């Protein structure tokens, strides 16, 4: 089954506003999800220059941009997608 693609923005603004914690995602993922997710870093995605700029940090999950990203929300989103994929 295709893995869920998670991209964490590692640009300056995202890094200081919480991305450094998001990069621990791999460790914090529940065991059941670990082999269902592929985590990569991305250089600055440019969201800090857009209208969204007050919602740092940013993470992309399967191409969808998540604002104000934090570990619990990101894990919850991944779980939902994994559920959806299971039932699909």
């Amino acid at each position, binding site marked *: 089954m295709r893995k869920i693609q998670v991209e964490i923005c*590692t*640009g*300056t*603004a995202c*890094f*200081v*506003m919480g*991305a*450094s914690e998001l*990069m*621990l995602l*791999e460790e914090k993922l529940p065991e059941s999800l670990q082999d269902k997710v592929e*985590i*990569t*870093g*991305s*250089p*600055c995605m*440019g969201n*800090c*220059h857009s209208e969204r*700029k*007050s919602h740092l940090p940013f993470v992309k999950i399967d191409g969808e941009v998540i604002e104000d990203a934090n570990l619990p929300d990101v894990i919850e989103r991944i779980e939902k997608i994994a559920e959806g994929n299971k039932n699909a």
Partner: protein
Amino acid sequence: MTNETSTMTSLNATESPCEAQQKDEIQKNIGETFVEVDHFQLCKSGQHSPGDVFLSEKNPSDGRTISTLSDGLGSGIKADVLATLTATMATKFVANDIPIKRAAEIIMNTLPVCSERGISYATFTTVDIDPNSTVKIIEYDNPPYLLVRQQTALDPIKESTEIVRKDKSTAPRMKAYLHYSKFTGEPGDRLVFFSDGVTQSGMGTALFPFGWTAENAYSFVLDRIKENPCVSARDLAKSVVQEACIHDGYKPKDDISCGVVYFRNPRDTLILTGPPISKESDKELASIFNLFNGKKVICGGTTANIMSRELKKPITVDMKNLDPEVPPFSEMEGADLVSEGIITLGTVADILENNGVYSSDKDNAATRMVEIFRNSDRIYFVVGTKINEAHQDPNMPEGLEIRRNVVKKVASLLEEKFLKETHIQYL
């Protein structure tokens, strides 16, 4: 981590990286010589301050490079003070062309007296190199320096003169002699000088009952150079000190210091940081990157995106070596390092301010950048001047300085503390 292929025009299977580098450098830099000066030292075991001090400076008015190694009596803070005073005075006097005998007498008569031993004493070796490659060396009580040319030790002619102290009661009993020598440096020449922590290492052991001795240390240096004719001043100094440390069973019995001066072909590094003020200059930036012959660093997410787009090369972020304080570095074909911008540069400035010292368990974009800079001789900064509006947001933490200020700080630290040559271009 270092991308050797970016500095080589051709690498055939029978050439070593060093030979190819030499060939490449000769093609690039016929006639160009850079004076690389570096040193390495270890404190006596159990001490926090080194009693040996190495000071180097480049005189902006006449382009002379002056380096002094001084060994203070004893070890620890007291020795550090003696050695610092001596090294500072020797360097300043030589820079100001004070006659050397007079300078040595002033130094010897000024040093504070050790309360335990009742004498004031510190050694020094000062090397003065002018832009015409004339080298003058003044030695007082350090082991004699080694001059290596074409992998052979040369025997320089020295003039000796006695220094007489005003206050004999605080002088060591032996007579004090100053040795002076002069020669013209040629490309490839190396000058190696060290404190007696090197020559006396291992003293009393079965292998070296009288210590390693200067002769053995010289042979070691010549062997290292034969093994690697391109060995940098930095690496050679480090290998001498580490070898001496091994003789002392990894617990130095004295401060161990070695300085090396190397007349070499310069190693060039280019660092692009910041998007150019106008998008039309993106192509120019890519062209600068392509045409440069040397190591290449891209510092900044937007800068990296521009280069990736212009050069059609993907960027992969390394998520393995994560550091909570410095954003992760990335890889792109053709670049030796791709990092984030301002935080990384700020950390580089901090490390350089701390004399290039950082915790040995750290491996992040900033430490890697520091290593690239320290293994370079000339560093070219190309600074994009477009302001990053995302950093001007008042909600962002303070301390995200303007890029050009941090670059200026890094460049001036590289020049003053590490005697590198830097150039800054704004786009």
